[in-house]
């Protein structure tokens, strides 16, 4: 049953009322019910692109924060890729000191409004939460991400963010390639030291996957724009429509254009396909194409947008990660009658965020587990008519530790679809490697970097995010961007001394 934000707020208010005069004991904290995230009604939201999760109300965030046991050993922090002081900011949130809570987060994280929305918390901080362990249910861990999101939104909406201090100009210049979370973080930290920073982005809008991949209903683009505006306010110059490797090479940027160091955050922009017959039929899309049309090109705004969206009735989505969920839920919103996520393993192995899987289910997305595609069939006009599938069972765990699917001979079947979206992941875009001498990559095409500094095998060139990690996460990209910037700041300082 869908519960409205008002009802949830009232329940939270009652809880707060109980502890108005005395702080709850640990036992009482553990008994406070986990606060449910208010969300748009599924019936409504499949007809719009607006954000699904509406965010806690102030009472809810305080009630949820009261659940935190303030563990002395702070196990949640070990699950956070950027080591945010989680209990400290939650303690402030519980008192209603949201601006102070935001400050604490900002000591470690640059993009909390984004990470609060898209981090896979159940595999990170919340996985280690004592409360979840006590209650033997990870869904009952303190909702760290939701509190983080509230606090970050509060700081943005109430303009109580501190504009990062920019040191006096050093005269040194750094180029930042790409404008995703890795690059945004690197650019901010480089600029803070007073270096001149120019960010080069290939597309006509900055933000990377946050803008072209992750849909509006999960991450409002206004939030990403706000982060980019902050960068600009700090003096970072953003050059759009600039494909490093083609418009200029890295060697030109460093040799001719006077950049003293380069950070590459070019992401994992190379869609993987299934390599099965029929993959080029009309109506087969990579998730990147499908999502880019909808998000970057605004094709969901049918009638206004000049980029068309394929008209689909029956959609098959292959994959089990966030990319698959985003594709399926976008297809639903664009009017597809049935949307089926087809995954080779079972729900338990799906790498997507739990919340997205739940949201997709509520929106009517269907799941077909333990099935693998063999061939995509077409009608006589070359348009997708269906997919030949084979059933699988789970075999032994593979290198990733997940049990790998084994095809069951003789279980082939054909299912009718008119659209197929391939959402099985992304590999590294080879463009920069191909146009830059001296950057070594591993067999997946990921840049090889020094783990401490994120420096590539080409001196002065650093890299982070998906181009190094393979398709990973926003928070990891941010963490690497910051790590690289730290090393680059040291590199630039040393270079400056030599020059002086």
């Amino acid at each position: 049953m869908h519960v409205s934000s008002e009802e949830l707020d009232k329940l939270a208010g009652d809880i707060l009322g109980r502890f108005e005069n005395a702080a709850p004991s640990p036992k009482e904290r553990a008994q406070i019910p986990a606060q449910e995230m208010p969300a748009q009604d599924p019936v409504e939201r499949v007809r719009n692109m607006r954000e699904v999760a509406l965010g806690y109300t102030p009472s809810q965030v305080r009630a949820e924060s009261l659940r935190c046991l303030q563990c002395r050993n702070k196990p949640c922090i070990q699950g956070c890729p950027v080591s945010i002081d989680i209990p400290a900011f939650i303690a402030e949130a519980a008192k209603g000191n949201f601006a102070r809570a935001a400050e604490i987060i900002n000591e470690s994280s640059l993009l909390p409004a984004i990470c609060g929305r898209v981090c896979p918390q159940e595999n990170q901080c919340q996985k280690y939460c004592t409360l979840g362990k006590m209650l033997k249910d990870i869904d009952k861990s303190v909702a760290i991400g939701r509190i983080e999101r509230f606090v970050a939104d509060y700081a943005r909406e109430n303009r109580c963010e501190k504009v990062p201090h920019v040191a006096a100009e050093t005269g040194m210049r750094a180029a930042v390639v790409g404008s995703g979370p890795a690059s945004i973080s690197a650019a901010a930290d480089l600029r803070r030291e007073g270096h001149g920073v120019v960010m080069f982005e290939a597309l006509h809008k900055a933000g990377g996957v946050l803008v072209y991949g992750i849909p509006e209903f999960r991450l409002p683009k206004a939030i990403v724009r706000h982060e980019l505006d902050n960068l600009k306010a700090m003096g970072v110059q953003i050059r759009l429509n600039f494909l490093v490797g083609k418009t200029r090479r890295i060697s030109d940027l460093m040799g001719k254009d006077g950049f003293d160091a380069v950070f590459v955050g070019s992401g994992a922009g190379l869609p993987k396909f299934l390599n099965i017959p029929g993959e080029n039929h009309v109506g087969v899309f990579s998730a990147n194409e499908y999502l880019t049309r909808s998000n970057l090109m605004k094709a969901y705004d049918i009638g206004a947008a000049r980029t068309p969206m394929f008209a689909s009735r029956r959609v098959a989505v292959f994959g089990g990660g966030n990319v698959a969920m985003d594709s399926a839920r976008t297809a639903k919103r664009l009017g597809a009658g049935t949307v089926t996520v087809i995954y080779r393993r079972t729900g338990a192995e799906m790498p997507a965020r739990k919340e997205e899987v739940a949201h997709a289910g509520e929106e009517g997305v269907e799941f077909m587990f333990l099935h693998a595609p063999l061939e995509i069939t077409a009608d006589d006009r070359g348009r997708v008519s269906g997919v030949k599938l084979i059933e699988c069972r789970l075999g032994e765990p593979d290198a990733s530790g997940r049990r790998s699917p084994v095809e069951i001979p003789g279980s082939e079947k054909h299912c009718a679809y008119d659209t197929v979206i391939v959402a099985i992941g992304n590999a590294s875009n080879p463009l920069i490697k191909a146009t830059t001498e001296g950057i070594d990559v591993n067999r997946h095409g990921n840049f090889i970097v020094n783990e401490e500094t994120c420096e590539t095998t080409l001196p002065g060139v650093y890299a982070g995010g998906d181009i190094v990690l393979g398709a990973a996460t926003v928070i990891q990209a941010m963490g690497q961007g910051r790590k690289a910037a730290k090393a680059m700041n040291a590199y630039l300082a040393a270079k400056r001394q030599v020059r002086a």
Partner: protein
Amino acid sequence: MNRIVRKEKLSAEVFRIAVEAPEIAAARKPGQFVIIQLGGDVNERIPLTIADADAGAKTITLVFQAVGESTHRLAALGVGDSIENLLGPLGRPTDIEKYGKVACVGGGIGVAPLYPIAQGMKNAGNEVKVIMGARSRGLIIMEAEMRAVADDVIVVTDDGSYGRKALVTAPLKELCEQWRPDCVVAIGPPVMMKFAALATKPYGIRTIVSLNTIMIDGTGMCGGCRVSVGGRTKFVCVDGPEFDGHQVDWDNMILRLGSYKPQEQEAHHRCHGLMKLNEGEA
């Protein structure tokens, strides 16, 4: 940035503009293209082949036909206006080498991107013959420029209103028979390129075509531009745009170009490259 500094009308629907783009002008090579987007949220990204460039003047030349909504909007821009988003140079340059004898075949607006290639081939020491075709006289473009670089120019029109009344494939076959080119470069509507490749196949002459599939990013990120070449999937924006015409799966490519026909008809959406013409235009 990206200010239009010159604009001419080459035929009823075809325009040539010179746009300030210093980095692209310096980096581009024949065969490469740009992607433009006219600003705002809802405009589409359209690929246009770079027809020429002047590194000294820091400009590139684009030739386009106003066929859909976006190209009409582009045509509405005048000297002094800017193209808000211009990305390039994209794709791999043409393999310009000394082959000996090179036949360049251009259909309709395909003559524009063919021009720098003909010029490059000539400068590389090849003997160059050009076949250019269009539906009718008014749609023949850049004949004088071509005559200035080529050793011979053969003009054909569908309706016979100018030059020979023929499709480009007729003189192409004759050249294959009599002149025996070592390499053929064909650029034009997909159907024309398909038949040009079919025409040269029996003679085993290397035939380069420049594909104009549907594109979005142009950086290899979306895969929307993919085609099957020699049984393998290639991304036109990064692996191409030029491929061996004898290896391209033309029927699949042409079907994929029609992916959005229903929407185009319904909502007047257009999603196409520069060279999409009515069939039989060349």
